[in-house]
């Protein structure tokens, strides 16, 4: 299982802040495709991914226990 966190506009779009998914052995890019199937309105978004609190590329492989976060364009400051 991996943990997936949603924030800000994405959280409002998915309707949940966190969920657990059975996705180990797949890449970040594959996770993105699965999530777009589950939440079609994600498709148009320019989302970055973080794995274990660090920005991750689509090729990064996910392992059980990983914590993934979908990072919409940031707007701090």
């Amino acid at each position, binding site marked *: 299982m991996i943990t997936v966190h949603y924030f800000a506009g994405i959280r409002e779009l998915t309707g949940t802040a966190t969920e657990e998914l059975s996705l180990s052995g797949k890449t970040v890019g594959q996770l993105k495709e699965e999530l777009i199937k589950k939440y079609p309105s994600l498709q*148009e978004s320019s989302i970055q991914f973080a794995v274990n609190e660090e920005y991750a590329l689509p090729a990064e492989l996910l392992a059980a226990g990983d914590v993934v976060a979908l990072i919409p364009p940031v707007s*701090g400051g």
Partner: protein
Amino acid sequence: MKPFSVITQAIDPQLYADYVLRPEAGAVTLFTGHVREWTKGIQTVYLAYEAYVPMAEKKLAQIGQEIEGKWPGTRVAIAHRIGELQISDIAVVIAVSSPHRRTAYEANEYAIERIKEIVPIWKKEIWNDGEQWIGDQKKKPEGEWQ
């Protein structure tokens, strides 16, 4: 005091200025970003900030390391507040000390630019007739998340 933190209570900027002061420091710059009432002709009622807290604190610390690498002799502290903020409340404080003033200004401005690029914090503007999560206007048109 945590020099790179995301906090929910009001920011006391003096704490961060005090943290960076040392006998070698001739200059301290303290930047505070405040909730502004008017943005492009639209009146803000309040702002709601949300963060991916553990990653945001790591990224704030990374910005501090970047600065201390680019400008040796500086010391940096940064805090960002989350939750509901009213007009004039401090959303972010950046303190930089340096032997000389030029560096203290440059490094401080670098910090706020980097915060707006890499730190997972999000702002929602609440108006009288609606609300909107704000994306990074430098990278994409406004309203994408509407």
